């Protein structure tokens, strides 16, 4: 059954989109990631214009982060103060990101920048995740299986980061650090989120753990809290500046995504953490390689249409 997407201006098979939403939702439930970094490239692969894929994905992530964020809110895993500071940085960043998006689109380079950002970030994060989880599995094999394996590196190191001004106390995170840090992290992730059509959790979570030194249990909830506001802002700006948010597509993705995430979360409870992470790392690296190949391979068609001056 075909359905016409009014903003993307194309007909798609309704079950293909529901299936994609479901599959990515399954992975996000399984691994606890947003899934934007998989969905945006997938949408581009099926022919949705990159600009529409990015704008629409931001809209879908608002929904998935509200539903995920509420779960963490109930469990008390959101550091509101930290979330607010990250959000301020994120709002400014997503504003800059959408403006940059508009300029690059006019220059005909937006697809290149989207692809390059994906290759760089997916490559780096996939490789790190793969290395770390394989390491854990190897150590577990060698070590006494009854002993727990410590994976999380905690805070406690003192570096130049602790010398920055504007210190703030974040009670829930048990941190006393400069507000510039979360502002900066929020800002950079906001730019990425706007350009790549992702929530940015896959960059934000490692940054919160390793750079800010936040305790792991509040990291996911707080990052989801921030992502709600940043993707909402991105959706608003993309709709206003670029008119690239397709609500029909977003709703279809949402339905598939919600169902998939629930199945995934249940499935995930039965599987082991490290093996899951190796699997996720392989998926991330796979998407990265595919995009890298497209950038390097000689294109079959050298010419393409550009946006005629808006």
């Amino acid at each position: 059954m075909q359905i016409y997407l009014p903003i993307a201006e194309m007909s798609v098979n309704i079950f293909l989109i529901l299936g994609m939403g479901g599959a990515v939702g399954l992975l996000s439930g399984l691994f606890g990631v947003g899934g934007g970094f998989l969905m945006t490239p997938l949408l581009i692969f099926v022919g949705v214009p990159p600009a529409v894929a990015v704008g629409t994905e931001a809209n879908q992530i608002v929904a998935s982060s509200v539903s995920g964020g509420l779960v963490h809110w109930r469990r008390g895993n959101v550091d509101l103060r930290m979330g607010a500071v990250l959000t301020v940085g994120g709002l400014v960043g997503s504003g800059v990101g959408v403006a940059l998006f508009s300029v690059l689109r006019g220059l005909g380079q937006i697809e290149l920048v989207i692809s390059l950002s994906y290759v760089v970030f997916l490559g780096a994060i996939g490789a790190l995740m793969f290395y770390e989880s394989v390491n854990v599995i190897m150590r577990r094999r060698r070590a006494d299986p009854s002993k727990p394996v410590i994976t999380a590196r905690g805070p406690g190191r003192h570096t130049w980061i602790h010398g920055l001004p504007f210190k703030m106390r974040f009670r829930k995170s048990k941190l006393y650090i400069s507000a510039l840090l979360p502002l900066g992290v929020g800002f950079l992730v906001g730019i990425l989120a706007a350009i790549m059509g992702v929530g940015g959790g896959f960059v934000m979570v490692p940054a919160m753990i390793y750079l800010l030194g936040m305790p792991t249990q509040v990291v996911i909830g707080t990052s989801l809290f921030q992502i709600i506001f940043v993707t909402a802002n991105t959706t608003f700006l993309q709709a206003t500046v670029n008119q690239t948010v397709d609500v029909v597509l977003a709703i279809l993705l949402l339905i598939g995504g919600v169902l998939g995430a629930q199945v995934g979360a249940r499935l995930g409870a039965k599987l082991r953490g490290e093996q899951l992470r190796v699997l996720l790392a392989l998926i991330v690296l796979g998407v990265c390689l595919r995009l890298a190949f497209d950038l390097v391979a000689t294109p079959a068609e050298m010419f393409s249409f550009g946006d005629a001056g808006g």
Partner: protein
Amino acid sequence: MSARLFILALMCAAGLTRAASAQTVPLVADLENHLVAITTGFTGTDVLLFGATDGPGDVVILVRGPGEDITLRRKERFGPIWANAESVELRDVPSFYSVASNGEPEDFASFRLRERYQIGLENLRLTFEDQRLSADVQSEYRDALLRLNQDRNLYNAEIGRVSLLANRLFRTELHFPANVPTGIYFVEIYLFRNGDVASAEIVPLSISKIGIGAEVYDFAHNLGPLYGLVAIIIAVLAGWAAEAAFRRT
């Protein structure tokens, strides 16, 4: 189908009597309907064109979509990666083009005529923004434009079939694919006789979005900020509803 045929017969009869009574009109033609509605379930459509001539001759039908200014970009290699480099702008390029005829236009229309009336994709006139471009560059971009639009099924190199009945009645199905651009189209009908154009007629056809799809599009383009807010509210409600629904189970 039979209803369609009946209407066709009726309208052709009407056309014939009109042609017969007015004697001076060698060609009449019309479309089954003048509005193609792109609805949510739109997957492309056929529009019936029918008409009558006052005697033997060859019929050529051109369909042209609304003109638009376009930018074409060419990729080049930068180190290991391929990226868009130079670009060229073209003015008033038809967004859709197709030809139909009862025969091969080469057989009854001279090259000069085919060129003048832009019959056949090879005779489509393109205007480059930058007139100083060399002929080589122009023809390269021209080929690229024709190729890209053929890949999108918006330009048709093949000549569609027009059925002629008793050298008087003709009909053809004009096909429009799912991704057809919206706007006012012009269907040009030419009657060739003795190596020249004996008569011509132009029929407009409006292709527009109708229903929810159209309203969503207009809303997004006219009231962007409000549209963005509505999109966010839908997403927040959906996320909240999903969480609430699964919390209970």
